[in-house]
């Protein structure tokens, strides 16, 4: 669905999106990495399991919640990718172990 900007650097960072290895330009956010590699919902909501995907891409709307390196409910649009980062969809509410 999305195209890279023409001035995108040629280096790549390797991350795992839903356990699939993908390469994205450095400086990309986890949300952008997810969007590059899927055109489906990237999470389901906490209250009614509705499908959602990143929307504002600037830290406001919380639609891009995802699990990053094992930590759930992170705003993917505010996290810059790093080598080996594991990015997974957020399914409903975060579970708590007590």
């Amino acid at each position, binding site marked *: 669905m999305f195209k890279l900007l023409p001035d995108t650097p040629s280096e790549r960072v390797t991350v795992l999106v839903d356990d699939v290895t993908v390469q994205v330009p450095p400086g990309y956010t986890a949300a952008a990495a997810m969007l590059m590699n899927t055109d489906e919902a990237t999470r389901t909501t*906490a*209250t009614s399991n509705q499908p959602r995907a990143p929307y504002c891409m600037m830290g406001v709307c*919380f639609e891009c919640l995802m699990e990053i390196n094992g*930590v759930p*409910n*992170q705003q993917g649009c505010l996290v810059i990718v790093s080598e080996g980062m594991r990015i997974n969809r957020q399914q*409903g*509410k*975060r*579970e*708590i*172990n*007590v």
Partner: protein
Amino acid sequence: MADFDAIVVGGGLVGTAVAYGLARRGRKAVVLDEGDIAHRASRGNFGLVWVQSKGFGVPEYQRWTRRSSEDWGAFSAQLQKETGIASGHERPGGVTLCLTEEELDKRRRMMAQLHLEAGETNFEYEILDHAQTKKLIPAIGPQVVGASYTRYDGAANPLYTLRALHAALLQHGGRYVPNARVEHINAAPNQFSITINGTTYAAPRLVLGAGLGNKALGEKVGLNVPVRPVRGQIIVTERVAPVLPMPTLMIRQTVEGTIMIGESREDAGWIDTTTPEIVHTLAERAVKTFPFLRDVRIVRTWAALRVMAPDGLPIYEQSRDFPGAFVCTCHSGVTLAAAHALHYAQYVIDGALPPELARFSTRRFDVQAAA
């Protein structure tokens, strides 16, 4: 000129609850709401419908609070039936968690006193040790020594409740006027009029339900309403799966999964912003109470100003100089919403407050301060 049966000043939980109660009884009510420059305690509320610890030394307050809590279920169901909006009200009981033996001892004495003062209304409670508390709420940490529990406590979503009250008010023929700051009141016994933006609203009844604004408004109709702001700060977390089956005085989980952490009290004048010190203190106690919170993300914090009388009680009064003018104010707009809609509105129609509300009269402020 627009004629009504009652003018209600204040569009928050208190004013709208009374106006809704009036409209449900077939009275034409208009709500004059200042607008978003008002301090709007109803938007910053923690959302408890709370009984335990209310009314220590004042049995009338315990009874009034308990009555509202008993009424809340029907009140919420009625609002949902009329508007389709669920208030999020739940009444699973509630606990006050204690982190030291001293806190628990103090709590034990307080609950025993409340029980005594309840008389025939029989305030039932339990003091729980760590193991008993853990059975109710498995998420507590080892530092929780015990808790007080009553089955009367619960919570609601203040924002949905307010929205439902507004919708229900309109459905019953009431009117809501936004951006309507009241500067002048033309008052005569059972005859009031207020002009806003060229429209004059007139009615034989006037209800001041404007929170901290009641102090200045009261002076215009012979009511002494010495309320002052008491700041409370709240931490809000990410949404997590259900982990707290009932509210505590300080921490509760909403229907949506958010965990709210609150219960700070400061005299900070009109400054309604958060401070790192208080947020730190709240977070520290929250993590001691529920260790799992250590790695739950905070998504926002906010502060709001409680509407506080010198003795912490509600203020209910009819003006002696201008009969027909009532004040209705408290710092528990959620807990008392049911009582205000179901009972206080009727007293306004009757033109008289009942003896059981006499303890909340402004007469209690008619003493000279010691030099």
